[in-house]
């Protein structure tokens, strides 16, 4: 059992990891135009500072024995009501540590890249302020020591995602995409908030330490419910089936945002949530199975969509969905897979950020054109971008010795340990990865030039290419480094547990089979998109291509299942309000009005008719008196 260490020495500064980018964003957002000139540099400085602090903590953490690597820092008591207690408290353990490094390091590189990418944007200061705010929120998410504080970070990244997708809000598509991402994320957030309530009702606490200590005492039904709600939350944040529809539209945001938020960090928060709550999923078999199913479906959906899109960013977004599907699948496998989910998350964070930034660099040189059918033969003109992109490409399709080979292979191997069917599906999807990524590379950098007239592609400035180079180096070595030198399995074991099952075939055989599939997929794509000429107008394609181009009708399904029913329901409510509620009120008023209209006709103005009614009344009174007396 791990013991909780007091936050001393460098670990007393855990709060500073978050405070630095938070302060940066506050200065930039509230500082106004005065900070225009130096604000972006301050933002970069803050993230770099945070990253440096993170690396220092890693070195310090490695001095301790594996059981003594969980540090707890309670700043103050945040919410307390009756028996409910939630502290503003942070927990830095091996899992949070790798996330902190990923977020701050990749974040810092993307900040630097943005300096070049957003150089001509009038609102650059605001952009950097939002980016800093995102980093702070994401760090809160991974450093929280209880679910309520995690929820703060969870909502924080949702907010910044909304702000950054809609950063160019003068484009109607961007504004709509931001709204769509936010609304679909709300569905997942409801799952998380219900899970937190259920956790509190069941265990009487929301802190990780308390909940995981007694999780096995709860009934399996309760744990399954909690697990499924957490899965819903993860599906929303990580764009998993059935809440996947927002991610492709989110590509309307600036490319660095797609790299940082919608590839490397925020969309992996769902994986973090599931791995962090591994105790719940290990105890709830059904919830874990549901996680695998969601993961496998999304893995395939993403890959199929990625194979048909002509928009380079949307194709990459499909790829992101697919890769996160791998991670979610791994997280559903139980202790066999948790470690590899995080392993793939880290390598993917690096090479996918590299791919997105590379795509951004291409767009930068092509006047923001995203249509791959208008690219081609860019290899010679954008040397650094092309080489780094191809290295990241080799990493994602899983060619040894690049990073993706080690992490994806581990997941496929772990899938076979759990179930052969899941293993085969994951392996085939790897072949599809080879297809769509080769298609992208072939259409962009090779083949004939299909540029628009008067196009002059050019390489991006150094401030953009240097982050690309650093990420490409990471994509090359990170897999080996983590597996052999960093020993990620034993590093994460105290948090996630580890389990290995003997398989009938040696490990190499699975890797070999995957590799063969990847090469087959790549060769097919190469023949189709590099050897043959690519038409500038997209051909009609088979029914599968058309379906994939339409994102497998995810939007239409949402439309039929959710949007239109709620539209009709609200129409019905409006009708009920107009006719029912207003009808009652207006009807009463009309009745009284009509009645008094009739009654006033008796005010004839003839004194003798008044006299007659007086006499009549008096007679009635007398009769009544007589009758009462008589009875």
């Amino acid at each position, binding site marked *: 059992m791990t013991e909780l260490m007091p936050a001393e020495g460098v670990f007393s500064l855990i709060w500073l990891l978050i405070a630095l980018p938070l302060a940066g964003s506050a200065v930039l957002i509230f500082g106004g135009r005065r900070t225009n000139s130096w604000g972006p540099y301050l933002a970069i400085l803050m993230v770099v500072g945070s990253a440096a602090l993170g690396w220092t903590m890693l070195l310090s953490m490695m001095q301790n024995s594996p059981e003594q690597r969980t540090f707890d820092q309670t700043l103050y008591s945040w919410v307390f009501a009756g028996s409910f207690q939630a502290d503003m408290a942070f927990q830095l353990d091996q899992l949070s540590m790798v996330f902190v490094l990923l977020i701050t390091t990749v974040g810092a590189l993307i900040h630097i890249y943005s300096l070049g990418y957003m150089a001509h944007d009038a609102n650059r200061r605001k952009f950097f302020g939002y980016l800093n705010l995102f980093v702070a929120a994401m760090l809160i998410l991974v450093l929280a020591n209880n679910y309520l504080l995690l929820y703060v970070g969870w909502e924080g990244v949702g907010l910044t995602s909304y702000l950054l997708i809609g950063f160019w809000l003068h484009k109607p598509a961007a504004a709509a995409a931001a709204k769509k991402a936010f609304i679909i994320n709300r569905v997942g957030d409801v799952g998380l908030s219900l899970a937190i309530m259920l956790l509190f009702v069941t265990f009487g606490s929301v802190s990780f330490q308390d909940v995981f200590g007694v999780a096995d005492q709860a009934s399996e039904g309760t744990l399954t419910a909690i697990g499924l709600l957490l899965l819903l939350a993860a599906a929303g944040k990580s764009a998993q089936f059935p809440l996947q529809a927002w991610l492709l539209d989110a590509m309307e945001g600036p490319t660095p945002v797609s790299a940082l938020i919608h590839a490397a960090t925020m969309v992996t928060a769902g994986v973090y949530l599931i791995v962090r709550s591994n105790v719940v999923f290990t105890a709830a078999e059904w919830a874990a199975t549901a996680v695998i199913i969601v993961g496998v479906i999304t893995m395939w959906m993403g890959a199929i969509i990625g194979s048909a899109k002509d928009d380079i960013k949307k194709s990459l977004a499909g790829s992101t969905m697919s890769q996160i599907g791998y991670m979610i699948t791994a997280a559903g496998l139980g202790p066999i897979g948790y470690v590899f989910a995080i392993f793939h998350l880290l390598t993917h964070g690096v090479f996918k950020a590299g791919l997105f930034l590379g795509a951004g660099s291409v767009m930068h040189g092509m006047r923001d054109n995203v249509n791959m059918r208008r690219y081609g033969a860019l290899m010679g003109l954008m040397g650094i971008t092309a080489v780094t992109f191809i290295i990241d490409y080799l990493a994602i399709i899983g060619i040894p010795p690049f990073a993706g080979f080690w992490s994806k292979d581990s997941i496929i191997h772990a899938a076979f340990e759990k179930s052969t069917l899941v293993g085969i599906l994951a392996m085939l999807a790897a072949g599809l990865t080879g297809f769509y990524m080769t298609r992208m590379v072939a259409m962009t950098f090779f083949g004939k030039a299909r540029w628009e007239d008067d196009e002059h592609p050019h390489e991006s400035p150094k401030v953009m290419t240097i982050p690309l180079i650093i990420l490409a180096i990471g994509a090359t070595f990170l897999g080996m480094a983590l597996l052999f030198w960093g020993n990620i399995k034993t590093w994460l074991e105290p948090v996630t547990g580890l389990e290995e099952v003997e398989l009938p075939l040696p490990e190499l055989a699975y890797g070999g089979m995957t590799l063969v599939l990847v090469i087959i997929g790549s060769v097919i794509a190469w023949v189709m998109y590099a050897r043959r000429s690519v038409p500038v107008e997209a051909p009609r394609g088979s029914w599968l291509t058309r379906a994939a181009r339409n994102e497998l009708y995810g939007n239409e399904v949402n439309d039929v299942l959710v949007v239109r029913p709620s539209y009709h329901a609200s129409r019905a409510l409006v009708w009920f309000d107009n006719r029912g509620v207003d009808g009652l009120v207006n009807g009463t008023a009309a009745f009284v009005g009509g009645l008094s209209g009739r009654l006033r006709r008796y005010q004839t103005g003839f004194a*003798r008719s008044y006299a007659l009614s007086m006499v009549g009344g008096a007679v009635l009174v007398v009769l009544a008196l007589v009758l009462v007396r008589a009875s």
Partner: protein
Amino acid sequence: MNPANYIVLSAVLFSIGAIGVLVRRNAIVVFMSIELMLNAANLAFVSFARMNGNLDGQTVAFFVMVVAAAEVVVGLAIIVTIFRTRRTASIDEPNLLKY
């Protein structure tokens, strides 16, 4: 003489007055009919006082006379004023105060 006869007489006078108010159009005649009803009431009061052997009814009869006198003053003033402006003593003509 049986006091009940006075009560009957009172009722007859009252009915004549009431019918007079209802059927006659001339304001002066209507006015006289009202006086007739008032005095029928007075007669009933006095008769009851006699039958019950106390003075309450007689006291009330005095009050009624005082009120009737005041009413005559106000009523005739109204009738005369209406006659001056509208040249009519009919009770149906001034019917502007209506819905």
